[in-house]
């Protein structure tokens, strides 16, 4: 059999088969169309359809079971995702509230500071100047702060600066609308002080240390100085009014071989980050009862700014 004959036979077969398929297709299409027409015009066929669907009930039940499982899995993931979303929202809210809470704590501290400043102001005379510190310290090695009140508002050089806890420092530069105050912890600052318990006088020198501690030099080694003693300003020198809290003795180093002891004082005022301060005008408090004789105070040692 040649190749051409074989192809011809295959074509004939295909055509014949195609024709029969076309006939079958036509028949089925007519039947289907007839079914459509019958269903559309004879509602009674719905009963037949009902019977057919009855047969399919197990199939539908199986599918429902399967899709129920699918929906369950889907629901699980949906619940999971909604829980995660909720968790995220709650975390965000918590963070926001945490920030609010922190601000609240800051406000509370500020409020307390302002209240004590107010009390202090009432004690020291009402014409004092309230100032706030500005976040500017050009030389970190020096302990000083910039205040938002200058000569225009009445700030002047040598003006005592007091915080809610006690003495902060003194104004060393007065610009027009700002001023610079040297803190008592600066290495160039000296402050005449007095022990509240014994009345012993001394000079508190700034150390320039980061912990803002003050040093009491030249205190005789036999002097009654103990840890926890409170120091107040003595009023000597006429710059700082007497009786202002300066700090608490934190450490006493007394060597029998030495003529003087060394005492370190922790300042009462917040020198790390003072916010609101009072600039005292020259109306000092009436000198507090100065117990005991003056002892250990250098006559010329007034508060000094460099």
């Amino acid at each position, binding site marked *: 059999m040649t190749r051409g004959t074989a192809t011809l036979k295959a074509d004939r077969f295909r055509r014949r088969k195609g024709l029969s398929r076309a006939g079958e*297709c036509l028949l*089925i299409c007519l039947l*289907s169309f007839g079914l459509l027409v019958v269903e*559309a015009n004879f509602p009674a*066929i719905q009963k037949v359809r009902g019977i057919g669907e009855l047969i399919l009930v197990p199939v539908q039940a199986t599918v429902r079971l399967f899709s129920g499982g699918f929906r369950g899995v889907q629901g699980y993931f949906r619940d999971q995702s909604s829980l995660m979303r909720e968790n995220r929202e709650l975390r965000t809210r918590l963070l926001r509230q945490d920030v609010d809470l922190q601000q609240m704590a800051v406000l509370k501290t500020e409020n307390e500071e302002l209240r004590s400043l107010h009390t202090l102001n009432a004690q020291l005379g009402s014409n004092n100047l309230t100032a706030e510190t500005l976040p500017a310290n050009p030389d970190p090695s020096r302990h000083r702060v910039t205040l938002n009140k200058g000569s225009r508002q009445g700030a002047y050089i040598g003006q005592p600066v007091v915080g809610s806890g006690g003495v902060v420092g003194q104004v060393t530069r007065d610009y027009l609308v700002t001023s610079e105050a040297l803190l008592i912890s600066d290495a160039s600052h000296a402050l005449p002080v007095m022990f509240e318990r014994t009345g012993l006088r001394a000079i508190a020198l700034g150390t320039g240390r980061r912990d803002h501690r003050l040093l009491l030099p030249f205190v005789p080694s036999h002097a009654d100085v103990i840890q926890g003693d409170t120091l107040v300003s003595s009023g000597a020198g006429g710059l700082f009014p007497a009786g202002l809290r300066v700090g608490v003795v934190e450490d006493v180093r007394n060597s029998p071989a030495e003529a003087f002891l060394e005492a370190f004082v922790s300042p009462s005022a917040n020198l790390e980050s003072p916010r609101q301060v009072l600039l005292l005008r020259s109306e000092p408090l009436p000198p507090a009862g100065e117990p005991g004789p003056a002892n250990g105070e250098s006559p010329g040692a007034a508060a000094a700014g460099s």
Partner: protein
Amino acid sequence: MTDGAVARNYALVGAALLISIVPLPRLLDLWQPPWLAVALIWLVLAAPENARLAVAAAAGLLQDLLVGSPLGLYALAATVLVFLAANMRPRIVSSPPWLRFLLAMLILAAYLGVVVLIGGWFGYVGSWAGIANSLMSGGVLILIAFLFLKV
């Protein structure tokens, strides 16, 4: 072809029928592919000896019962589809892949066109947008079938 292979082919058509009534998530529901049509196209191309018009009509009739469409609608469409696919098969299998895909899409479009036109005539509401969605998702299925199933 063995009996097992025949059973497997018909099982595939049955599975397509079942999947077509599985409720999909809302987003995918709009893109419900014409599972039966794709399965029948695959059957015609992969196992033409099993792709009988009567089988297609029966499967279509079952789909009518399952989805609640007018009786005979999917039977008619499935019959037309198998007829077209069977007649175009020699051309399809000898064509390059892109043309093969294009022809399969043409057959699918004809199937969906029958469903919309005839269904619309008998009050079975179908939208052209839905048909377009079905055509696209069906196209994706056909691509997958051509790529991963032996055609």
